[in-house]
């Protein structure tokens, strides 16, 4: 198929950036290609012409590392439900389509170059408390603590988050509530995470706020965009947990 793509090009964080149109480079695209393989082809053609290829992040290309991050026709990770950009295939498009490709847009995720953004703010949130404080070597036998299947499954549902940031990109307020709440739901659901529950909730929410992410106004665009289908209910749980922890502190 032949396509027209408009790609956000931005030299560095200071550059204003803008869309560039490519048509010649997007001819003869196979429907079996992944979306990123289509961009690989475009990049090869740009390079051969002596132009700078489009910079974009990707690594595992099997939907688990969370590196790839682009807004395709206004939707983070593109049109398919529960699918990262790297797993999106060109079958989703047809001959003659026009595709707009942009980076995640959020104050807390500054653009580094073209489609690549800096997501360190997510690491900062985890560093604030997204862990269980236990040193290596002191763990009891794993079966000495029984954890019901439902509890473990529910923690796993939340732990499936890949930290890609699509939730932030989808949110009109650039909120990181789904990301933060998913980590809290994973840790706070498990008995191992209980002792630090209140402190963890307060610290991570605090770190999220100071990183420059917006607040939640219950649009739940995050849930719709999440490639791992993390439920928006974790946000409600986080709000409850936060209120409880705040009272407890007083």
């Amino acid at each position: 198929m032949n396509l027209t793509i408009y790609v956000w090009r931005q030299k560095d964080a200071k550059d204003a950036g803008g869309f560039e149109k490519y048509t010649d480079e997007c001819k003869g695209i196979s429907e079996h290609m992944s979306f990123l393989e289509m961009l690989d082809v475009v990049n090869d053609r740009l390079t051969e012409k002596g132009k700078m290829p489009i910079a974009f992040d990707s690594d595992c290309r099997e939907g688990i590392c969370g590196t790839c991050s682009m807004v395709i026709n206004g939707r983070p990770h593109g049109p398919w439900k529960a699918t990262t950009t790297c797993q999106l295939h060109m079958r989703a498009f047809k001959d003659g389509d026009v595709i707009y490709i942009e980076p995640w847009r959020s104050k807390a995720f500054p653009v580094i170059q073209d489609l690549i953004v800096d997501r360190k703010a997510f690491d900062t949130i985890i560093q604030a408390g997204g862990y269980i404080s236990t040193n290596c070597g002191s763990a009891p036998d794993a079966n000495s603590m029984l954890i019901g299947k439902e509890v473990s499954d529910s923690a796993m549902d939340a732990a499936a988050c890949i930290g890609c940031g699509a939730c932030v990109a989808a949110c009109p307020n650039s909120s990181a509530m789904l990301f933060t709440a998913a980590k809290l739901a994973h840790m706070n659901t498990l008995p191992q995470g209980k002792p630090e529950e209140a402190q963890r909730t307060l610290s991570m929410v605090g770190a999220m706020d100071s990183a420059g992410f917006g607040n939640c106004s219950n649009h739940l665009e995050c849930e719709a965009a999440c490639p791992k289908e993390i439920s928006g209910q974790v946000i409600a749980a986080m709000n409850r947990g936060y209120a409880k922890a705040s009272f407890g502190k007083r």
Partner: protein
Amino acid sequence: MNLDAHIPEGPIDQKWENAKFKFKLVNPANKRKFDIIVVGSGLAGGSAAATLAELGYNVACFCYQDSPRRAHSIAAQGGINAAKNYQGDGDSVYRLFYDTVKGGDFRSREANVYRLAQVSRNIIDQATAMGVPFAREYGGTLANRSFGGAQVSRTFYARGQTGQQLLLGVYAGLSRQIKAGRVTMFTRHEMLELVTVEGRAAGIVTRDMVSGKIESHAGHSVIMASGGYGNVFYLSTNAMGCNVTATYRAYKKGAGFANPCYTQIHPTCIPVSGDYQSKLTLMSESLRNDGRVWVPKKKEDCGKKPSQIAEADRDYYLERKYPAFGNLVPRDVASRNAKLVCDEGRGVGPGGYGVYLDFAEAIGRLGRPAVEGRYGNLFDMYQRITGDDPYSTPMRIYPAVHYTMGGLWVDYNLQSTIPGMFVLGEANFSDHGANRLGASALMQGLADGYFVIPYTLGNYLAGQNPKKIDTDHAAFKEAEKSCKERIDTFLAIDGKRTVDSFHKELGKIMWDHCGMARNEAGLKSALELIPALREEFWQNVKVPGSGATLNQSLEKAGRVADFLEFGELMVRDALERDESAGGHFREEHQSPEGEAVRDDENFAHAAVWEYKGDNATPVRHKEPMTFEHVKLATRSYK
């Protein structure tokens, strides 16, 4: 080259205890005076960095990804082995040890493997304490599944995302140490050079991939946990960024490289669909628990839809040839048999390089919901990539490069031939011999990082002076200069071909001549083709842009330049190893049934290569492998 493995005295089950007792210790006040550099933040590097920081060392950890949470350990699907015997089905440390040595086709070091089996139990405890949500039974105990190469159920898992969950556990611990100021994390940094001072590892030179800045980092020890080199084949299940640069640069600085020809071809991957393909996607080996592998008996049926081929016309070749293990034979055996039936012309799908993995029987026996529960996310992934629904039609799979058992040589203490440089995880060579069993990579990475290096590193550092090392030393300046010159050279060539086109061509040479099956003529021709391609690369590669900004073409150029040298070393190793062993299958050495035939008299050793200069042939050394506990025998899974 000194290849003393420093295996501790005593009976095999007491060696590690004896070693730990004899190790010198660093007192807590002195630990903070030692600076440790960790290259890589996957299961091995991340767990080492966090654990060493917990002990009180100053740690600097480097990764090329934008966050340590994205290291490629994250992509491991199926599970992690541990000799817990929670199922009471006859498992033990000794049995895991035995299975691993046998599975490795008797080319690994017994003492290391035994220790791996011993600490495997602690890993599950540690990961659980860190909040890893392993699968559970209704009663609340941990669940297990079975995996290839074993007849007990010892694999722990978290749906099809075990690597992700274990890595997030490691990342959580690492994040805690970063917050505490015990670990300084350098993301989007790539190691370009190892620096040695007076014969000891003294630091590294890195490139900041955002600013392009070349920087030196000094340390009293360098820990390499930079993963494997499967991307030398271009197409593999590795992540796009996985590369050999860190380990290859260390090799060029004097570290022995062991068994580079041992590569693992994973039997269950989605077949290649076209020239544009950038990577191959693995379908977890756990699928072989319930999926049945088959091809049509007759070539004429290959073009038909699978539903049109009668049961009697199907050849479940693994069940037929290996009744004891059936579809659960080890990876090398499963891969080779898939190639065999496709070479006979009985392969399915476009191009004829695929076999069916069929779940119809499992869905009939267990019901669709149970199958969904076990493999739902994998089935969804398959459907997204191929457009086929595996609930109603069998998957098509074909083997693909997945893991590399070879790596930098290390002794029992995980120290390389360069004093002060330790190597962990897939980057070293020690535990898997010529073939790795499924669910053992996660086990080894975490064993090395959580439970081995924290002890062995102290033993090394106790004999070192904690005085700060200065990056103004001539060795650092020289290394920085050579990195800068190399970058300038890439940018100045201004040829006609993209970096990827060279990488693809190298990959094809490697796959055709040094892939699933190898022979003398093919390997010799690769030894001609690779240097010619390398020559062209340095004349005709096109790297646009500058070195002073983020430049992905430049990053790739550096990695591919190293692959172009490393590939030759791999081929040389495959040529010299004139036997078949595990993942290394030399067509000249096979039984009438097509099984690998080892030559224990001449090749029961690790081949360790020593770099002798760009224009000289590297020298092959040997570390003999002796087997006191697991008797050398022909592997049989019949």
